[in-house]
């Protein structure tokens, strides 16, 4: 087993309550993909134990080969027309009042998968008008009109992750573009003034402190409201190695810097991911999130690592 000699602070509680097992069962029975599973997320047990999952649509095979990502790279199959209905059923069974939807990148599709985002959003809105919807969209190869289609279905939050600093793009996100991603965030902001926008970066891929601060400024310059900053963790031996483990104090420093440059909310900590406690981040910027229809069972094991890491609420 490879690991990168994890530092002492990079430690989580391995939560295993009944809701974890039920969430796994529901998602498996409905054949719904989640980025939680596909990315081998270390927060999976914690999130599934609160019946929270981030849906991965358009299949689970990606057309890009990002160095940090464990999602299978190959030729994806046809878009599944039943996928939106299965997502809706999962939303119902999990009792979600806050839904996060992301996708693999589908450069093989003429619409980049925008139509499937729209279908999922529209079908969720049919079952409930109070459910809040966050989408984490791909870059659509810079085709702004495709992002417009998604925005037109009126999600509450639109996110697009920058992922890393500009210099590391050829290594970390080949096939993507730093300026292209910033332009996408800028376009979302300019075309939908009322929509909350969000982005995120990973640390530990070889970036310098100055480059991180530069990236935060670049993201903020698009008008972005929320930024997430987390530690890159290598999902497998074929992925990029971890260059450094950023300590919690430095994450706190980045949080303060992010707040100083004007983000409405900065989530920063080793285990922060763009959809980790996404409902909490969104509530922090004023989104009115209705109480969950399903009450997670109390568990004294539960702990919020964003608070523990000093990246607070």
């Amino acid at each position, binding site marked *: 087993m490879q690991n990168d000699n*994890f530092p002492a602070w990079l430690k989580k509680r391995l939560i295993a309550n009944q809701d974890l097992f039920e969430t796994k069962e529901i998602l498996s029975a409905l054949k719904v993909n989640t980025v*939680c599973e596909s990315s*081998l997320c270390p927060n999976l047990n914690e999130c599934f134990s609160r019946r929270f999952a981030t849906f991965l649509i358009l299949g689970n095979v990606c057309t890009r080969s990002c160095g940090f990502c464990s999602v299978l790279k190959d030729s994806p199959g046809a878009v599944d027309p039943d996928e939106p209905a299965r997502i809706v059923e999962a939303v119902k069974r999990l009792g979600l009042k806050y839904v996060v939807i992301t996708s693999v990148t589908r450069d093989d599709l003429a619409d980049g998968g925008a139509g499937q985002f729209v279908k999922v959003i529209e079908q969720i809105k049919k079952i409930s008008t109070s459910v809040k919807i966050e989408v984490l969209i791909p870059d659509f190869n810079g085709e702004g009109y495709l992002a417009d289609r998604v925005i037109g279905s009126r999600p509450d939050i639109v996110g697009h992750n920058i992922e890393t600093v500009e210099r590391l793009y050829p290594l970390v996100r080949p096939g993507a573009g730093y300026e292209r991603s910033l332009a996408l965030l800028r376009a979302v902001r300019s075309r939908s003034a009322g929509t909350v926008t969000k982005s995120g970066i990973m640390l530990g891929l070889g970036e310098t402190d100055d480059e991180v601060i530069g990236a935060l400024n670049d993201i903020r310059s698009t008008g972005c409201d929320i930024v997430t900053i987390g530690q890159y*963790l290598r999902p497998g031996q074929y992925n990029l190695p971890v260059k450094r483990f950023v300590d919690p104090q430095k994450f706190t420093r980045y949080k303060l810097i992010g707040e100083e440059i004007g983000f409405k909310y900065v989530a920063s900590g080793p285990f922060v991911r763009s959809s980790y406690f996404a409902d909490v981040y969104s509530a922090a910027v004023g989104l009115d999130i209705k109480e969950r229809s399903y009450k997670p069972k109390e568990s*004294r094991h539960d702990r919020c690592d964003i608070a523990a890491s000093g990246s607070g609420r």
Partner: protein
Amino acid sequence: MTDVTLPPLAQGVDKANVSYWHHNVGDAIKEGEDLVELVTDKATFNLPAPISGVLKEVLVSEGDAVKVGQTLAKIG
């Protein structure tokens, strides 16, 4: 007697390495207290005790690779 098992992780992550037992056989332990530290490719985890009781048996040693669902200890 309650079995302490390795809970499910992300799909495709089917094992972890035992790195440290926080308690010895015979120790009284409270529900939620850290029982054993485990390492996967992605992070280090502390598995809490599922119930209060006495740690009756430890079935795997530090350094062992353990599979999801495997019984690691018994608390009674």
